[in-house]
């Protein structure tokens, strides 16, 4: 996956909306990147995508 949006959609498919809200806050605090509504400058930025992927892995969510 090459965008934060794609990560979000993949996570959302396996979690409920409530879980995604809490997960998004955790990821935002850890990375500064919004999983729920990524800014354009973050969405396709490989470094941002990798930071989010690592934060998700740290939370036990692997894509």
């Amino acid at each position, binding site marked *: 996956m090459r965008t934060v949006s794609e990560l979000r959609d993949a996570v959302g498919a396996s979690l409920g909306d409530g879980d995604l809200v809490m997960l998004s806050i955790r990821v935002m605090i850890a990375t500064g990147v919004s999983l729920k509504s990524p800014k354009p400058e973050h969405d396709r930025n490989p470094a941002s995508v990798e930071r989010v992927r690592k934060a998700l892995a740290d*939370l*036990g969510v692997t894509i």
Partner: protein
Amino acid sequence: MSSPTTDAALRGGFRSAWTQSTSTQQVVDDIVEQFGADVDPGVVMVFLTSDADGAKVTALLSDRWPGAEVLGCTTAGEFNDTRTGHGGASALALPARIVKRAVAEIAGFRQGTVEGIDAAVERVESRLGSCLRDLSPTTCIGLVLVDGLHGDEEAVNQRLGYHAPALSFVGGSAGDDQKFAGTRVFCNGRESDRGAALLMVEVTVPFAVLKTCSLRPGPHSFTVTRADVDRRVVYEVDSRPVLEAYAEALGISPGELDEAAFIRHPWGLMIDDDPWVRSPLAVLPDGGLRFYCQIPEGMQLSVMDGGDLVGGMRSALDRVRQEVGGSVSGAVLFNCILRRLEMDADDLHPVWTELLRGTPTAGFHTYGESWLGHINQTCVGVVFGSEAG
């Protein structure tokens, strides 16, 4: 939360206590007396000055109520719904009849934070008979009290998120009356000065997480471009020296960046218009700005302006009261020491107590707050509804 303690609150079985004593036996006697002879707690929380022997206090309370989980920590001030101060203790009893299951454990971090949390979670899950991931976030809530001087909070919150991504762990960092010499957490007579006390409780009443801070974003925001994350230090924002950019935003010189400026204008990570505050701690000789929590590179933060601490708290209490169905039976609150300093300066303690009056409540002034992550200059807590809903 604005009327005298009601019959309904007493019937709810939550009880609070507050004492100015530091004598172990007197603290215990005061808590037992104020809880009342008919109390039947499933969980007891006690927050007390670092001058008191918290391990002994929690041991004696465990002896008094062997069926209850007893946990607590040292503080930078204690309050309940009738009194506020520092150098004493506050306590809250959750009634056994609303506690379906409860387990409290100490996580020790001397062998590593992740290892300590993992081991404690394993013990919690063994005693509960359930994996945390299988618990319902609508009936189960976690509390986390972290020692406040070792900077473990981010790793603690992250690892708890790993074990229980759908559950809330709410809490605070233990204080030591601003001596910054040593903080401790307690659980059923045991203690740790490098660890956390964890509680997982399943209740039969609705509950809601309270989060409020009195700050709002000002016109200036930065993106962090160089930071030492582990040391909680920021060096550059927008590719400029942090002290220069921060001072310019406040209209002062870098040499004027002091504690007063930090308290009035901390930084905030805005998530859906809600600030998750990161408070500066000190200017470093190497040009860095140390914070009370980690800030990663790439994070965009607003410079915050002051607001209405009391009004924000009142609104937050109204909001959670509605969330739990309109009737509140008890609450535990974790309020930042920096907010307490603001309350001291503006003589806000009487009105703070007035906001809580009528609902058995206990809490303490913290060295940091926890909910989904580590935050600053915020009040977080858990507010419980009534059995009638």
